[in-house]
């Protein structure tokens, strides 16, 4: 099953290359083989399916709809399972010879059937009645989250004990894998103890965080608290140490003490995460927070970018914010608090471009007033006179687009939060001469 999938994955990827013609033939072979495999499995369940029918469905999905081969296989199997009223677990569950015993670090795909020899490293509190047990299991190669469904009716796992766990399915969420124990999973305790890697979190500096999924300790100050946009998030914001700042997320489930802006803490057992090449740290149930007396001096890493302003995004100009949560209103309505009497503000969300790279930039009211030459009060008057708040945005575009600026500030997600901005002045003759000297 595993080797088969890998080969199939390879073919799917290669199919995108230039050697398309040649690979199409091999693709057809794969479709035939897959369809034969599906047919055999159904025969074992006393269902005889016309091979051409399986092949037709597979090739339609793969060739016409460009569905990845593995997904196509899954879809076709699901179709026939429904058609013949066969339970998923009867089809997949009995494929015992097919699930492979593997190491945790080998798990790199969702929806695989796997067996592991692993130790229960941590048990967490279940957050749902559907979940009997949840936590971390580990082997020599790493640890992975597991979920044991209540419906599966399996024996209780004990923290620190090692087991042979057969027939689990893998799952993936935001690039991280987990295993699920279901009705067909078999658990037996092992006599020998499985060694797990030292998960001891290390004290690190924020600018040293360059990998996701690491357990770390930090000494840092809470520099910003933002509005949580989701009830599952208790607190979210920025923490910083001498080397820089990083976004943090504290889950409501983790039941940790409240962080206060401006206070310094010693944090233990945080997990690093990455999204679009930006790192963050997440607090979980095993994290701990201890306030410290030191006042940590936060080093802000600032970025500078010089380029032309080539675009001003929607949501720029004169906007209104919710008086309760400060979020920008959409069509006069706050997503959280509904119809509110908004407070006017000015801002610019711009795209800067130097011909090599683009940088999105967020200009707050103060900076916007200084480069746009329009104050909030003037902007309000303009909007009232024109009966249209877009006149402010139009005027900003007229004044700013196409000009060169040097902006400095800290990077947050996609945006550079502009702390200072300078309109670029004239080119010096010296600059031109030295460029000419390079080539003549």
């Amino acid at each position, binding site marked *: 099953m595993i080797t088969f999938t890998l080969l199939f994955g390879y073919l799917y990827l290669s199919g995108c290359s230039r050697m398309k013609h040649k690979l199409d033939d091999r693709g057809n072979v794969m479709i035939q083989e897959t369809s034969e495999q599906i047919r055999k499995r159904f025969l074992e369940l006393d269902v005889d399916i016309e091979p051409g029918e399986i092949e037709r469905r597979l090739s339609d999905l793969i060739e016409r709809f*460009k569905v990845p081969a593995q997904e196509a296989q899954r879809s076709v199997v699901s179709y026939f399972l429904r058609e013949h009223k066969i339970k998923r677990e009867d089809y997949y569950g009995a494929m015992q010879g097919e699930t492979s015993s593997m190491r945790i670090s080998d798990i790199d795909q969702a929806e695989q059937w796997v067996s592991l020899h692993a130790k229960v490293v941590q048990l967490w509190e279940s957050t749902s009645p559907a979940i009997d047990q949840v936590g971390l299991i580990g082997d020599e190669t790493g640890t992975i989250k597991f979920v044991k469904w209540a419906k599966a009716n399996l024996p209780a796992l004990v923290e620190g004990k090692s087991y042979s766990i057969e027939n689990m399915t893998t799952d993936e969420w935001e690039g991280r894998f987990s295993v699920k124990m279901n009705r067909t999973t078999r658990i037996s305790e092992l006599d020998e103890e499985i060694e797990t890697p030292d998960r001891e979190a290390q004290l690190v500096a924020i600018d040293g965080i360059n990998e996701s999924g690491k357990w770390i300790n930090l000494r840092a100050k809470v520099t910003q608290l933002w509005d949580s946009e989701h009830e599952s998030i208790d607190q979210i914001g920025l923490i910083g140490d001498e080397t820089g700042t990083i976004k943090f997320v504290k889950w409501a489930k983790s039941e940790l003490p409240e962080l206060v802006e401006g206070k310094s803490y010693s944090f233990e057992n945080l997990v690093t995460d990455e999204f*679009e090449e930006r790192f963050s740290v997440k607090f979980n149930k095993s994290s701990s927070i201890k306030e410290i007396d030191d006042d940590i001096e936060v080093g802000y890493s600032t970025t500078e970018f010089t380029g*032309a302003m*080539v*675009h001003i995004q929607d949501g720029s100009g004169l906007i209104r914010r919710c008086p309760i949560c400060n979020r920008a209103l959409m069509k006069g309505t706050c997503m959280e608090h509904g119809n509110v009497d908004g407070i006017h503000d000015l801002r610019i969300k711009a*795209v800067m*471009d*130097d*011909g*090599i*790279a*683009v940088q999105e930039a967020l200009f707050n009211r103060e900076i916007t007033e200084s480069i746009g030459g329009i104050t909030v009060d003037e902007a309000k008057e303009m909007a009232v006179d024109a009966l249209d708040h877009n006149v402010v945005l*139009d005027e900003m*575009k*007229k004044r*700013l*687009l*196409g*000009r*060169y600026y040097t902006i400095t500030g800290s990077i947050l997600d996609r945006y550079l939060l502009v702390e200072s901005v300078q309109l*670029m*002045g*004239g*080119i010096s*003759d010296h*600059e*031109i*001469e030295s*460029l*000419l000297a*390079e*080539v*003549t």
Partner: protein
Amino acid sequence: MAAFAREVAYRIFAQELRDTTLVLERDIEDAYAPQYVVTPTGAKVNRIFIVGTLTEKEDIGTDAEYWRARISDPTGTFFVYAGQYQPDAARVIADASVPEFLAVVGKVGVYTTEDGNVMTSIRPEAISVVDAVTRDRWVVETARQTLDRIRKLEDRSSQNIEMVQEHYSLDIEQYRQVAISALESIQ
């Protein structure tokens, strides 16, 4: 998964854009696939940023307004077309006086004539009236980036060198001269 990334606005002199005849085939499976051209110095371009002088403008539309603007840099002329689908840009052209410095951000459009000639133009996303300081900065920046592209072709580190060699039989040296004379023109 790769996140959506905005296309960089390339800096290309008018002469180089006029000489551009290599149009990459679009991915027909993807309606949102961007259109690229590869210029003689090896820039693979979808979006462009230019600063030049409005030298001529004409409303060539029959029913609705459709503006054609000629915008010149020290090396040649860009053609910019703006109609009802670029209302902001069309308005700026309509209101602009000749001559005036304009900055244009837009997509490179290509058109193949009946006798097989490829014509390039710019479909503007934004146009603004700027000053000579901005124009000078653009010329220096465009010269520097053009010279960098030439250098990368010469030391064979340009990603698009094969396409350039296969398609263009032009002497690359002439674009170095174009950049030099552009620089000299604003000294």
